[in-house]
């Protein structure tokens, strides 16, 4: 019971911080479940992925209502992304937990570095370019093929590690497909729900999802994210980004250290 209460508080904090910093909670929760709460890495990934379905569904329902989702772009990329998620989930199930930990640690290190770089340079994607919501410009076939290929990798990482993959999808939508930032975030959120659902189904049928954790984590992340979004303007995102990247860095090292012992 105490563990679940602690997990609820942790999820609340993760939801709060991640909504301010602009990342999904999966990248933090999956290693936390393994390192702090002692769950098997595969169970942590599977459960976090299902929580991602819950959180992104509630977020994208708002975006859909506001008409911010670029449906054509989302559906162009989603088949390969979903296929990637399924492949990723099968890879995680098939390989030993130690290898999964190494891959998770490497991705966390990458995330930590990207986040730190952005915080230090204080510049997010599309900042200062006058992005407003408009229709996606016509994109060459080469760029579309490139986007489809990258989205497969994003999906694979999502299915493999229980992360949403927004950190790949948003830059892809903005930089390769030329979507406005607002629309890219909304489109990515809509895609994340579908991608995570595809991966989650594989994990569910293999019995790797822990239902009680889904309830506790979802009911923590959602109010935390709402609270974070409301107080975002009063806090310093740069400082939080630095803090979060340090946590991710530490988690990655701890994962690697647990293997070395």
């Amino acid at each position, binding site marked *: 019971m105490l563990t679940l209460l602690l997990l609820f508080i942790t999820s609340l904090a993760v939801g709060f911080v991640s909504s301010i910093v602009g990342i999904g909670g999966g990248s933090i929760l999956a290693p936390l479940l393994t390192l702090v709460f002692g769950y098997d890495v595969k169970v942590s990934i599977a459960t976090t992925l*299902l929580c991602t*379905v*819950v959180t992104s*569904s*509630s977020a*994208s*329902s*708002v975006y*859909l*209502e506001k*008409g911010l*989702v670029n*449906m*054509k772009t989302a*559906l*162009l990329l*989603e*088949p390969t992304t*979903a*296929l990637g*998620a*399924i492949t990723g*989930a*099968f890879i995680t199930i098939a390989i030993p937990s130690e290898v999964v930990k190494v891959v998770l640690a490497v991705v966390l290190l990458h995330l930590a570095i990207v986040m730190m770089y952005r915080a230090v340079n204080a510049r997010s994607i599309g900042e200062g370019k006058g992005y407003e919501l408009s229709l996606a410009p016509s994109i060459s076939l080469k760029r579309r093929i490139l986007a489809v290929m990258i989205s497969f990798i994003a999906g694979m990482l999502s299915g493999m590690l229980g992360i949403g993959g927004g950190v790949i999808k948003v830059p892809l939508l903005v930089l390769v497909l030329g979507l406005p930032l607002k629309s890219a975030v909304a489109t990515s959120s809509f895609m994340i*729900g*579908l991608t995570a*659902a*595809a991966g*989650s*189904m*594989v994990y*569910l*049928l*293999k019995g790797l*999802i822990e*239902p*009680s954790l*889904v*309830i506790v984590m*979802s*009911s923590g992340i959602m109010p935390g994210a709402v609270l974070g979004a409301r107080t975002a303007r009063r806090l310093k995102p740069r400082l939080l980004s630095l803090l979060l990247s340090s946590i991710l860095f530490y988690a990655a090292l701890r994962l690697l250290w647990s293997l070395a012992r």
Partner: protein
Amino acid sequence: MGYRSASLILRCGTILGLITITTGLVLGHKPVSEMLVLLGLVSIIITPLISLMLIGVLSILKRDFHTFILSQITIGTILLSILLSAM
């Protein structure tokens, strides 16, 4: 615009799934609770799919065949994953 119903499905489906899982966990009566938990988990997973199906239907009503075909390919891919993992 025009995806209000799909948005409503996304919101209600996940909440319904979470409530069903909680009921199952609280109930504790073995066969029924297990069934409720599974039902809740499945309903959370299929909610985005149902929403996508509705988007497909809406796009065909608007004669947007491109969106319709893409939505069907996505649904097909995800259903394939279910079949593959069930094997």
